[in-house]
């Protein structure tokens, strides 16, 4: 079982090693990085490459660790008791499996994605320590121990909104997805749009990296935004010349909505572009 990237995902060497280490040593892999650099996609691609099933657990601010293990549906049981349903006698009928349970009992070794763990309450990671370490937990209602027959490949993504506790970090491997340089970016774009015109790509990347250089942007555009934008450019059949902002009448690149996500950024960019043009004239 070795991950070497897929035909739709360009994995850098360091990422590849980190993923393989996590697979070989059966530890969870914590992935951080700017939004839109492919953290979540990675889990899908690893699953695809290893031909393993993927189990996704998306974390929200209200998610509790217990929900990942199991939930006891008391309401259904109460209702069934009213209706005289036979199932009511066995409490096991009302235990709803959580994502971790699913992962632990899967027949094939699955990839378990715990997405955006930082969104949850500050204690959430601590509540999962034992479960992720030993890959087992206890169901109080039925008094059984659920133990993973084969430890799932656990991938955890975080956007750094909250700091994770040390005890949790100890149990994980860590990888920070760096923003791709131009060369890697070209590879990534190639993978997604193989028939993109060379010169269009060159101009688009120029514009893209220029925008990322603009100081004070609230949200820098990232890989996923670039890919969206390129798709739009292709749909609109934009010519490379239109992107050459230097001599174009437009201040900001066409279809900028895909790159700049809030109006302050658009204003900022317009102002800078305006100033740059004024300087050119003088």
């Amino acid at each position: 079982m070795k991950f070497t990237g897929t035909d739709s995902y360009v994995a850098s060497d360091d990422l590849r090693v980190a993923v393989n280490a996590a697979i070989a040593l059966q530890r969870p892999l914590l992935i951080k990085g700017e939004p839109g650099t492919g953290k979540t996609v990675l889990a899908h691609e690893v699953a695809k490459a290893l031909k393993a099933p993927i189990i996704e657990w998306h974390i929200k601010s209200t998610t509790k660790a217990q929900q990942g293990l199991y939930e006891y549906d008391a309401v259904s049981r109460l209702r069934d008791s009213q209706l005289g349903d036979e199932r009511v006698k066995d409490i096991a009928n009302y235990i709803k499996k959580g994502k971790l349970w699913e992962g632990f009992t899967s027949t094939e070794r699955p990839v378990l994605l715990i997405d955006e763990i930082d969104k949850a309450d500050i204690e959430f990671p601590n509540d999962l320590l034992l479960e992720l370490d030993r890959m087992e937990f206890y169901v109080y209602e039925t008094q059984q121990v659920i133990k993973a027959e084969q430890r799932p490949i656990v991938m955890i993504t975080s956007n750094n909104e909250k700091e994770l506790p040390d005890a949790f970090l100890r149990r994980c491997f860590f990888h920070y997805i760096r923003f791709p340089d131009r060369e890697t970016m070209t590879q990534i774009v190639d993978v997604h749009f193989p028939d993109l015109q060379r010169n269009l790509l060159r101009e688009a990347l120029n514009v893209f990296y220029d925008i990322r250089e603009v100081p004070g942007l609230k949200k820098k555009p990232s890989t996923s935004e670039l890919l969206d934008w390129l798709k739009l450019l292709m749909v609109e059949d934009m010519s490379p010349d239109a992107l050459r902002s230097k001599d174009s009448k437009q201040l900001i690149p066409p279809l900028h909505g895909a790159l700049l996500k809030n109006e302050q950024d658009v204003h900022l960019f317009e102002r800078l572009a305006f100033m740059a043009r004024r300087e050119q004239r003088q």
Partner: protein
Amino acid sequence: MFVNFFLELRQAKVPVSIKEYLALMEGMDKGVSDYSVDDFYYLSRAILVKDERNLDKFDKVFGHIFKGLEAVPGDGVAAEIPEEWLRKLAEKLLTEEEKAQIEALGGWEKLMETLKKRLEEQQKRHQGGSKWIGTAGTSPFGAHGFNPEGVRIGQDKNREGRAVKVWDKREYKNLDDTVEIGTRNIKIALRRLRKFAREGAEVELDMPDTIRSTARNAGYLDIKMVPERRNKVKLLILFDIGGSMDAHIRVCEELFSAARSEFKHLEFFYFHNCLYEKLWKDNRRRHVDTFSTAQLLHTYPADYKVLFVGDASMSPYEIAYPGGSVEHWNEESGQTWIQRVADTYRSMVWLNPVPERHWSYTPSIQLLQQLSSNRMFPLTLGGLDSAMKELNK
């Protein structure tokens, strides 16, 4: 050597523990890194570093240890590497495109022969020297003129050459020192200030009540719902900004960043040195966009808890007399305004980033200490803890 590496990481304040060290050994044992320095770097980085702001420190230590490695006479290493080169080379040569180019050179056999010869030369040359891994990785081929038009060994896919640079480049430098540092501790302290209450829409099942009601209902199901538990503490933070506070900007940022994510009802305003009739929310527009303190007192109900953050270090006149402000003419003294706030809000504390032991030397601190009826606490975790206790009373 690895123990050294481990100890040096600890010395460089990268938090590594025995657990991670053992994991690294396990990883090596299972052959994840595959005898390549490159992969070893990535492997150890994934295992030993848990936070991007430690990556730079790690790179530095790795670079340091790695330099030590260069000085080792290349016996054992030398035996290993040519094979690796050959293997990599062979991999490279297997693509169709390149095969054609090899044909142009006189065929595969001849090429391998030339390559072996080159490598032998290479080995001899380097036996006396010591710079084995550092630069020898892939560049020798280029250096020896073995770089005919097709076989781009160590040109654009210069893996080894780049790998050495990876940690020397120290790409993660600017990730060091983000605002988020240490906020976890602050958040934990702020959690003392939680007052859970059930308000709003009823979305959760109230189990005990449902059972009770059902029993009372002669066994017929009677479901009871309750609203979700939420932290209902409302907090108003007033930051002193500029001047003498510049030295404490970081700890204030940390506090702000932690508080912001902890409380749903959080309002903040800035003032300079002492509280007067005006406050502002945006420091860039502080003279244009102001909020009157009188309005503040009317806008936020008395159940808000007020947190002053400031060093309270100024001339006592700035607090005690009208017109004492350094920035403008204030009709009423700062003292009056602070008294008004204290009268309106029952829960009020002052957090002071100045170490507590210096407080007694600054008259203005003592003055404000009195004004806040001894509810001034140092801006440390301990102080924060006591302040939260005070606010909870």
